[in-house]
């Protein structure tokens, strides 16, 4: 009787010891990193790139910037949707990292929480950076970080499919011409356009070019222009120009649909350039058209580098050095090429285009782009965004008309913003 009880327990303990040894010996490369040299101070560094481990260019760059500044960097990569909450939690517990790289619309939230130091306190020079990109990190006139790179949205098109359908991509310059092109693609037995209309910030991100391109302003969702943008999307679904799956699509899923070769257009971003090269058909990129012509302003994606508040203000000197190192023009070219971002400094942008001409339409798009939290929307933006995505979700799924959906959204947003 004793044996039968001991055996499973013994087995478990043996397994435990074995597993522990295996895990310990094959020392996890993990997504955290730290080289050490005695005498250096240890600085913590958080970023939203868990896909990069110790052997990647990004981590090597971070470590070397640290060494140049006289610090050993302990770097951890987190899931981006989680990083804001972790930053808040760490701020509450007084264990904030020294440097954080985080999605640009979150900067105003963290600044509002008092977690970040301003560029003035850090004595950081932000004049070289393009204004429309830096604007996302400006709260009440103070800058709370510098952009590390920008990306934005444009329309990729399937050149082969459009040719078959008799559509000239250069003719797509307004909503009208876009709809005409979609009709032609559908007539040629293709599927029109796909995008991400999911009920998260990703969906809002994809909706904004159409919203801003109609002339609407985030401070008034229920304007006629804003409603027309929602109607654009809802009509696409009704007419069959866009598949029903867009209601739940992430940007990755939308890209996968495009990659099947059946779609004429996909609204997607700079980061897909690497994948675009692997497509089984010829493709091209055009700016997202505004309602009445011209390029629509698209929202800026991309992260900012920022310095959370530390108890020991003496650390800021080294922190500033590290941030300078990461974002100086020389290193920016390397960083942004690795991350598939457009540089936030005009000169470096030119260098990027020289090296890779395919980036030209993207540089233009980034030049036309706008920060979501700009216009001093700051922490009001997430509130408005949440209502906005609820509205277009309801309109696309047929539970409400575009007008009533946006009206409800505007009322809810207005009651909650500061």
């Amino acid at each position, binding site marked *: 009787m004793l044996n039968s009880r001991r055996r499973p327990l013994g087995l478990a303990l043996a397994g435990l010891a074995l597993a522990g040894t295996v895990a310990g010996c094959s020392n996890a490369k993990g997504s955290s990193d730290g080289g050490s040299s005695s005498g250096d101070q240890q600085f913590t560094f958080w970023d939203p790139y868990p896909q990069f481990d110790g052997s990647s260019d990004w981590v090597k760059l971070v470590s070397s910037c640290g060494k140049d500044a006289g610090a050993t960097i302990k770097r951890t990569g987190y899931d981006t949707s989680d990083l*804001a*909450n972790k930053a*808040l939690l760490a*701020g*509450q517990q007084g264990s904030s990292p020294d440097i954080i790289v985080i999605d640009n*619309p*979150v900067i105003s*939230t*963290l600044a*509002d*929480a*008092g*977690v970040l130091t301003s560029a003035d306190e850090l004595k950081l020079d932000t004049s070289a950076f393009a204004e429309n990109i830096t604007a996302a990190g400006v709260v009440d006139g103070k800058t709370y970080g510098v952009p590390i790179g920008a990306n934005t949205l444009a329309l990729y098109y399937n050149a082969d499919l459009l040719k078959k359908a008799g559509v000239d991509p250069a003719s797509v310059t307004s909503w009208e011409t876009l709809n005409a092109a979609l009709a032609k693609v559908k007539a040629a037995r293709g599927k029109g356009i796909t995008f991400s209309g*999911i*009920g*998260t*910030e990703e969906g809002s991100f994809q909706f904004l070019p159409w919203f801003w391109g109609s002339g609407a302003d985030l401070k008034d969702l229920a304007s006629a222009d804003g409603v027309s943008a929602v109607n654009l999307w809802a009509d696409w679904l009704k007419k069959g120009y866009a*598949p*029903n*799956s867009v*209601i*739940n699509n992430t940007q990755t899923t939308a890209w996968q*649909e495009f990659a099947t070769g059946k779609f004429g257009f996909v609204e997607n971003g700079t980061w897909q350039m690497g994948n675009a090269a692997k497509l089984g058909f010829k493709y091209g990129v055009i700016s997202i058209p505004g309602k009445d012509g011209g390029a629509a302003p698209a929202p800026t994606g991309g992260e900012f580098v920022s310095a959370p508040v530390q108890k020991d203000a003496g650390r800021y000197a080294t922190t500033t050095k590290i941030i300078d190192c990461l974002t100086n023009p020389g290193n920016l070219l390397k960083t942004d090429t690795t991350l598939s971002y457009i540089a936030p400094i005009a000169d470096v942008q030119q260098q990027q285009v020289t090296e890779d001409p395919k980036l030209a339409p993207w540089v233009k798009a980034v030049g036309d782009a706008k920060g979501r939290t700009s216009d001093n929307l700051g*922490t009001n*933006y*997430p*509130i408005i*965004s*949440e209502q906005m995505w*609820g509205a277009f*979700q*309801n309109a*696309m*799924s*047929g*539970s*409400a008309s575009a007008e009533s959906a946006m009206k409800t959204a505007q009322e809810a947003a207005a009651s909650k913003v500061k």
Partner: protein
Amino acid sequence: MSIRTADRTSRVDTRVSTREERPPRYRRLLGWAYLVPVLVYLIAFYAYPLYRNVELSLRDYTVRSFVSGDARFIGLDNFREVFSSPTFASAIIHTAIFTFVSIAFQYVIGLALAVFYNQNFRLSGTLRALFLVPWLLPLIVSASTWSWLLNSESGVVNAALEAFGLPQINWLTSPTWSLIAVIIANIWIGIPFNLVILHSGLQNIPDELFEASALDGADAWRTFRHVTFPLLKPVSAITLLLGFVYTLKVFDIIWIMTRGGPGASSTTLSTWSYQLGFGSLLPHFGPGAAVGNILIIVALVFGLLYIRYENAQAKR
């Protein structure tokens, strides 16, 4: 009759009874010695987070006051905000539907499978073990796989429907079907739990009872109704109660599949709590915690009902 006697001796009593034969005082104090680890657990790991959650719901937490820790006490304002929100009614209704339908199907299917696999045929053990494989998968994988299966355009379920000439259903993107889609996925995830516990309960029924029943001339269904099911009542009760508690908490599946949408068509109290707290770029901890506490209160009520049921059973 033999069945009656068996009923009393091998009934699994989940209630801690205070019957005639009270153990001596020393014994009872000694009992607490065994409970020390669990008590430490409860205080450190449950009481503290629960206290934090109640506190979060009673104060006005902005991101700034969350970080600095000096939020204003506002009493039940967060709860008032939650009750008057248009989403509240939908969340309650959806939670009720989601929970009761899921549990009903999970339990019935789990029970049927447990009885079926309890028989000793070739591979019955291995096949039953394989039923647990879904639990090995991180929820992000299982939920994503179901999203894949139920995709309006490229999902295999719609492809099958099309092959049979049936209309395609927008499982995840239609307000009518989104709740049904997440219920289906949740039933799938819950079956192994019911299967394992009910099977364990079945193992505890001595073979002699089944033999006696067969000798009495009862067929499979009668044996089930008069022998198996009554003897499984205590185990069933705890399975259903735990299933209820766990289903109330279900969040990952719904969140990954539909985010509670479109609109609020598949929002339950659990997803709403997360959405308020962490769902947008601006966390709204107060109302999120308030909804979380409402959930806990609902579970408390059902827990009390269970205890009353148990007491009534013991008195019989």
